[in-house]
């Protein structure tokens, strides 16, 4: 299969994730969408690594996975602490920083 196929799948996944971040108001779902975007990028990294016979893409994938795991930990902690203080987690309600 040509590399284009992988890239099309990757682009589709990325778009789904981006739309998810923009339209959903539940932070948990938004997080999942962000994961989707990250993994879409991972997919394109792997595809290029395979077709270019380079190991660099692999390394980026591991890096992205690690960062994603750390980000989820921090993000979930923030969400839990927001829920404990405000008893709701609708992101549109969290607009205290309005100018």
């Amino acid at each position, binding site marked *: 299969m040509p590399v284009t196929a992988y890239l099309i799948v990757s682009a589709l996944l990325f778009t789904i994730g*981006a739309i998810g*971040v*923009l339209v959903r108001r539940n932070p948990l779902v938004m997080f999942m969408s962000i994961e989707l975007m990250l993994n879409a990028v991972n997919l394109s990294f792997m595809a290029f690594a395979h077709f270019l016979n380079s190991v660099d893409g692999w390394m980026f994938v591991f890096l992205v996975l690690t960062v994603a795991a750390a980000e989820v930990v921090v993000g979930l902690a923030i969400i839990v602490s927001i829920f404990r203080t405000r008893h709701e987690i609708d*992101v549109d309600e*969290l*607009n*205290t*920083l*309005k*100018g």
Partner: protein
Amino acid sequence: MLNLTPYILLLPLAGFVALGLLGRALPRMAISLIGCGVVLAAFALAVADFIAMLGVAPDARFSIVQPWTWVISGSLKIPFGLLSDPLSAVMLLIVTGVGFLIHVYSIGYMADDPGYWRFFSFLNLFIFTMALLVAADNFLMLLVGWGGVGLASFLLIGFWYTRPSAVAAARKAFVVNVIGDFGLLLAIFLIFKTFGTLQYSSLLRGPILIIPSTFGPPVLSHPALSTSSATITAIALLLFVAAAAKSAQLPLHVWLPDAMEGPTPVSALIHAATMVTAGVYLVARASAIFSASPTALAVVGIVGGATALFAATIACVQMDIKRVLAYSTMSQLGYMFMGEAAGGFSSGIFHLTTHAYFKALLFMAAGAVIHALAGEQDMRKMGGLRAKLPRTFWLFVIGGLALAAVFPLSGFWSKDGILSVVLERARTDGGTGWYVLYGVGLVTAILTGFYIFRLIFGVFLGTYRGEPVAAHGAHGAADDARDPLRNVREVGTTMMVPMVILGILSVIGGFYGTPWNDAIGTFLEPSTHTVNMGIPPGSGLFLSGFALGLVTGPIGIAIAWALYARRQPRFAPSRNPLVVLLQHKYYIDELYNAVFVVPVTSIGALWRIGLEDGLFGRGSSGLGQVVGGMSKGLRRLQTGYARNYALAIFIGAALILVYFVVHP
């Protein structure tokens, strides 16, 4: 030789710092102990220095301590140097000795004041700066002390800072003193440019060698002096500007009468005994420079004589007892300058010491009267206090007799010394001007006896003319109308003892400077290079001068007795134009107000309305409004919705992507 000067300086400084930082928390007992203790210790050290100095030969009575170098800039190198010589020793004795007595007096006088700790802290600061002024071994450190005493004076005149008049007086004193500081600064520049040094030791004893001639100004051997004596005259005149401002001489005298707004111990210490004499000290210290310029000495003599007469005439009509003493101080300072102008630098310093005793005593006694009458200072509302305040009365009389130069009190000898020096100068010089100056001295002496005994008779004799005096600490009128003075009491021990000591000094303080045994003149000779020791005793001229000196004071007292020693002396306003002129102090304040103050304040008002309010005020607020309006629009972008920001990020990322696709 023993030189304890650094410790004499350090003690009051430590007292100032300790009281300034911790005074608020300390009990009054501790404040009094620290405040007076440090000055007493400094006085003990000054006495030790003085005794050690007497033990060595006159030529060896100089020593300099230079702990470190203070300023290095190009060829200018100024050590932090403290000088111990006969002149500074005498000055330190007066500053710390009289200063200590006034500290003790203040314990009683300021007992009820909430700013007790602040007062003693400022007094210690004053003693420190004054000691620095007289102990400096170069002109730059002199300037530091010079400015420091101005600051201490400012703080103490404005001590009761809730009174607008006190604040105005403090500001006036500071502004006039800064004129003098400026003169001193210019003199320092010129001295450095001419001689290349600011050290007294190399300046006044080294390169400039004083060769005492038989009479006349000493010959100075310095290359700069032979080339242009105009420079020396300029230096001397600039120094005298500083001296005149500090010592309240014409035309820079206007601050001293107003300075009486300060507490009475301050008037006694700063505005009678010590600070105002700094000008006399400066002229004596720079005697080598002044002696080299007959023009400058003539100016000193004219200004001193004019001030002596001018202030004495004003003192004759003043009603506020402290103001009478203030004008008297100006007049006596003029006397000191007269003596110095005639070449008798030690006679000026001698009068400085005796004046410190009797004028401090007079101020303290006036303070005791004011204290007893619960703050009254107008002699029209006094009278008949002799029965209630017998000890204060007799101390006042002693001070008055000394001031009026009645034989054999201290003031007689010092005033006679000055007159004798002026007469000697007139005899050797042959100039009419010196004879005129001598005449001015005699007239002033008569006026002095008159105004001080007008004050004493008005306050203590006759019948009481004021309101009933309220009980101490109580407010409202006294309850007993039959005896309005029922609550009047003599002051307590802490105030009486310093007055008695000064009273004794006022009586005997002149015996170290009689014409037959001029101990102080001989002692000061190495420092002041006095070329004129007065008329030698024994000649016919001496006898007639002495006789004139004997009668002038009593003549003035007799006139005062004839006019004011009655039951109801007339203090009513007079229509006599001369009296009106004197009551308005020759309209000098009004003149300065019209010539200097009003133009400056109107220019200031113009700038304030035009520049400050118009340009800077509206300009800066307009700039603020522009920025504020812009940010009011921009803050709409900050919606607070996380998804809006996410959308903005995506749109931005998409635009960047499009850009790279279009421009590969």
